[in-house]
């Protein structure tokens, strides 16, 4: 890619090529129908087309490409989880992210910033120590750091004794990073479309037809489409879409609200989060501070915002960065999160033959985009569940083998 970029930069004109093919009529049959053209759906299509030679794929979305939670997340990439299953999975994802701009020939604006999680209690320090040990054993860079190291890493952070919940220690995760979330889905979708995948926007799946326990076709607002198999990747609507195929999921759906301030000069390099104060923050390369927090206190399929949640975000961030008291909020929004009981995703086979689940992505979906695409594509192409995602299958709830990551979220939900 660097050479191509140099060549492009030396030209006199800068021709722009269209990323995606015009959406033609739907065909009668596809080998694979992917419901949901977000980061995950586009990534699955990309890996199927590039590495498994399957390109007769329809990538369907009721809205537009990357218009759901791919556009609404706060673009945090990290692998400092608590369980071995979780750490292995997200570690692979971080590695794929590092090479993704070259893989796609498309700049995803990956920035290795490091991520700092703050402890305000002894209990939090104990859990950080636990996470750091699990991480280190699996080759993920995490360490418990003291207040002086925190001050050096983030000079603007208020590390004093006179605050309501003084910062006691931190979990420093050097592998933490951020990237342009839109670029990730655009890059994957472009790569998929170049290899023959059809992107159909404004195409809503209204019912799923199952015969003899296997999926045969989907009915959309643009007609019936026969299919060899279906992958659902519809974060925020997982329960609703799965029910079309007769599948019940262990999910509760909550909004998560976020907001962004006016731009400042660069003053904050790492991503900072405080599970105790229910807030996480990063400064984007544009200079804006992006703030996210805990989920809403009750279930809802709606991206409305509430003053209470915004007030709680604002008061939490002022505990950490008092200089933001003068900041103006530029934009605010909400995403819809599918929360599972153990804060891990649901990936793999379902009770319906040839109907694959990529669901339960709660507040941890963006960071898993590349590895999710790679492993789900492998599952679809070979029919075998990759070892990396076997712990996340739906059946784990019937075996009482949950993968508990509730202690490793950036903000308690």
């Amino acid at each position: 890619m660097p050479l191509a970029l140099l060549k492009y930069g030396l030209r006199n004109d800068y021709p722009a090529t269209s990323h995606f093919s015009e959406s033609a009529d739907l065909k009668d049959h596809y080998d694979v129908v992917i419901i949901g053209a977000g980061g995950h759906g586009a990534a699955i299509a990309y890996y199927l087309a590039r590495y498994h030679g399957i390109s007769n794929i329809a990538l369907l979305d009721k809205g537009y490409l990357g218009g759901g939670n791919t556009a609404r997340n706060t673009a945090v990439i990290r692998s400092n989880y608590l369980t071995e299953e979780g750490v292995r999975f997200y570690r692979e994802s971080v590695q794929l992210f590092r090479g993704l701009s070259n893989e796609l020939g498309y700049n995803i604006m990956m920035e290795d910033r490091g991520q700092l999680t703050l402890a305000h209690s002894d209990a939090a320090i104990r859990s950080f120590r636990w996470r750091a040990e699990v991480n280190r054993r699996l080759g993920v860079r995490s360490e418990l750091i003291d207040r002086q190291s925190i001050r050096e890493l983030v000079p603007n952070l208020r590390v004093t004794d006179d605050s309501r919940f003084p910062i006691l220690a931190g979990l420093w995760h050097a592998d933490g990073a951020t990237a342009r979330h839109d670029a990730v889905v655009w890059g994957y979708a472009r790569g998929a479309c170049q290899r023959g995948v059809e992107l159909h926007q404004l195409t809503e799946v209204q019912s799923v037809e199952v015969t003899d326990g296997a999926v045969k076709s989907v009915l959309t607002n643009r007609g019936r489409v026969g299919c060899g198999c279906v992958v659902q990747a519809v974060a925020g609507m997982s329960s609703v879409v799965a029910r079309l195929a007769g599948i019940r999921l262990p999910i509760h759906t909550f909004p998560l609200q976020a907001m962004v301030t006016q731009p400042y000069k660069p003053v904050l390099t790492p991503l900072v989060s405080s599970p105790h104060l229910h807030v996480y923050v990063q400064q984007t390369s544009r200079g804006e501070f992006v703030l996210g927090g805990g989920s809403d206190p009750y279930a809802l399929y709606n991206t409305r915002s509430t003053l209470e949640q915004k007030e709680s975000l604002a008061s939490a961030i002022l505990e950490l960065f008092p200089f933001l008291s003068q900041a103006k909020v530029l934009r605010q929004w909400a995403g819809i999160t599918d929360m599972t009981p153990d804060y891990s995703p649901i990936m793999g086979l379902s009770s319906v033959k040839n109907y694959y689940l990529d669901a339960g992505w709660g507040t941890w979906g963006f960071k898993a985009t590349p590895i999710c695409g790679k492993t789900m594509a492998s599952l679809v192409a070979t029919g075998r569940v990759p070892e990396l995602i076997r712990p996340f299958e739906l059946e784990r709830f019937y075996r009482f083998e949950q993968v508990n990551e509730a202690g490793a979220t950036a903000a308690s939900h």
Partner: protein
Amino acid sequence: MKILICPLNGPRNISEFTYGGEYHPLADPQKSNDRAWADYVFFHDNHAGIVIEWWCHTASSYWFLAERDTRTDNVVRTFPASELATSDGRS
């Protein structure tokens, strides 16, 4: 501030309440096998639409039921759990 009408205490700010999740009848622990019990504990209908769910007025520890639209956040009605109690007294 959104107002929720508690059947015991009348209209109150929604911040005074705790959400208790969707209502579904208690599975019989004596008769349920492991699979049925897992189904009861972990799995949910999670409907997008009007649902019945548990709420608690935190200050008075009073649990009751609400009918609420999970697409619009519009509360249709709230009522005491006794309305849905089974003959053996369970809700």
